[in-house]
């Protein structure tokens, strides 16, 4: 076999440089694969009626530019934005529904407002519709709804933080079993990897759907669902970091007769800690975004509120919720990116 290699090398030495044969940038296989991909995409586009999408978007662009009278997308969006703005900041509650009125009135800027109302009712004597003049008193809290939404956002963040914490705690030992160079046995390595990819393969939204049945509505199913999924990610990434860690310091400590545990703690962990922290922060960031979504199936947090308001057609409140989610995610993204840059 080595003779074959020798022959090949000798041959290439013989050719003058102007006659060297270079590898083509795209070979026949790449061209065939690209053609195959185009055929598949065309087939799928036809199945999904993608043409409709292009025509809708096109007419929306034309309508926005004033070249077309109306478009379906434009109608939908304008209906929604008309409902959403202005967004709701304050909270008005009829006093008869407020239990602890004095305590809530003591809050800054809280006040009572009386509004004249006219209720139209059927007069049982005359059998005619008549208006009854009356008045209704409302408790007005100027930033009431915004505060409530921020509190829900905090709950969402707490769900994400606990889920991340649990995921990190489970992933640390699990990743050792899933790292090829530290698994006690190859079968444990295989089982660990399979288990971890199973955890990863269940989308949070689906597992939350079932966990809500198990735990009931509220933040707990959300925490569990997110923790399961993020464990699947973290254990995999941690394990890959452990496998990729510089082997030389590990050998240097192993040569002293130290146990695998000591090598892991003294050589592997210090080398991968920065990367672990960066990954955990990314997962936290991602979990906050996912925690808003899984609230839709009743797993607590701001998503649950969002779904409720959406179903009641209270789009102005939905607007407030979306704005808060958007700003939080933006802020967190910038923050975690900054921390991760400093770590690595």
């Amino acid at each position, binding site marked *: *076999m*080595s003779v074959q*290699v*020798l022959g090949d*090398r000798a041959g290439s030495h013989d050719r003058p440089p102007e006659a060297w044969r270079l590898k083509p940038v795209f070979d026949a296989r790449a061209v065939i694969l690209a053609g195959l991909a185009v055929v598949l995409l065309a087939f799928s586009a036809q199945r999904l009626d993608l043409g409709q999408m292009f025509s809708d978007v096109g007419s929306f662009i034309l309508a926005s530019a004033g070249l077309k009278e109306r478009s379906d997308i434009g109608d939908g969006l304008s209906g929604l934005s008309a409902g959403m703005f202005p967004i709701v900041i304050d909270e008005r509650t009829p006093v008869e529904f407020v239990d602890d009125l004095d305590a809530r009135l003591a809050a800054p800027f809280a006040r009572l407002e009386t509004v004249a109302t006219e209720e139209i009712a059927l007069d049982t004597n005359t059998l005619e519709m008549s208006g009854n003049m009356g008045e209704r008193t409302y408790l007005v809290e100027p930033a009431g709804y915004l505060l409530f939404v921020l509190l829900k956002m905090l709950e969402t963040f707490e769900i994400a933080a606990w889920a991340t914490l649990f995921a990190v705690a489970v992933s640390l030992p699990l990743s050792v079993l899933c790292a090829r160079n530290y698994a006690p046995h190859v079968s444990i390595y295989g089982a660990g990897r399979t288990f971890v990819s199973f955890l990863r393969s269940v989308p949070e939204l689906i597992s939350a759907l079932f966990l809500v049945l198990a735990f009931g509505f509220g933040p707990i199913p959300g925490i569990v669902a997110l923790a399961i999924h993020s464990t699947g990610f973290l254990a995999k990434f941690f394990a890959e970091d452990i496998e990729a860690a*510089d082997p*030389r*310091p590990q*050998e*240097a*400590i*192993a*040569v*002293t*007769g*130290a*146990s695998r*545990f*000591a*090598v892991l*703690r*003294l*050589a592997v962990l*210090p*080398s991968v*800690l*920065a990367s672990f922290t960066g990954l955990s922060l990314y997962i936290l960031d991602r979990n906050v975004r996912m925690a808003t979504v899984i609230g839709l199936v009743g797993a607590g947090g701001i998503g649950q509120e969002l779904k409720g308001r959406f179903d009641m057609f209270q789009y102005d409140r939905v607007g407030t919720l979306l704005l808060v989610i958007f700003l939080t995610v933006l802020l967190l993204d910038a923050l975690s990116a900054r921390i991760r840059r400093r770590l690595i």
Partner: protein
Amino acid sequence: MAGGWIGKGATVDKKSDSLAQVALDAGKAGKLLSCRELVKAYGEGPPALAGVSFQMDAPGFTVLLGSSGSGKTTLLRAIAGLVPLESGEIQVAGRTMTRTNLSSVRRQLGMVHQEFALVERLTSVQNVLSGAATQVSWPRIVCQAYPEELRRRACQLLADVGLTEAQANRKARELSGGQRQRVGIARALIRKPKLFLADEPVANLDPETAAGLLTLLREAVTSRGIGVLCSLHQTDLALRYADRIIGLKAGRIVFDGAPDAFTPSVASTLFARDGAPHALTVAAA
């Protein structure tokens, strides 16, 4: 160069006593290190070790001399139990190394590496202390809370190899190559090994730093009564520091003797390239 090796004189006698005891246990085997017919091959190429046998009976500075690819690193890594062998037997301090007693045999060894092999994000002193993991309980390892006595010892060793307090608290990645290798030596010494393996400890250093480091290493081990097996590729350094030179070529010992016997003709045989077929086969492998 290094400060005095304070209070180490007394331990030397004790060491040789225990070495004599070990020799009795081992029968006809070498006292410190005995390698018999070591064979190791990587893939289909020529073997990295093609039947290497030698003994180290007493403490001293033994240099493994040879060009790149002669099998020096493989031999040292095999003695450290880092490379599984095709065949052969290694005895360290009279005990045969097997898969099961690897950890306890390794406790007799200290090793420094060509690439220093320090944990970059730990400080010098933490790196030195990590060499003593076998003497510390696991909760202490988790917290990196080493006993006071070990910490004192680590500081003393770092001072002995010529590092300052500030450098002791600096992270390994902030040190120069020479300083890193000094930390490596201190790490290998902290557990009081009987046999010290050094794999090209000065390959990545400039000539002056290299000479200073080898002087330091020689002083450090001879004053403690430790045997050193140090691989080098520089003949001049080998002649200057070695008590004994083992010449390795293509996985075989081609010279074994005192530096006086290492004549220029021996050197030229040791470092001569073989004919083209050999070199080309290596490339093909």
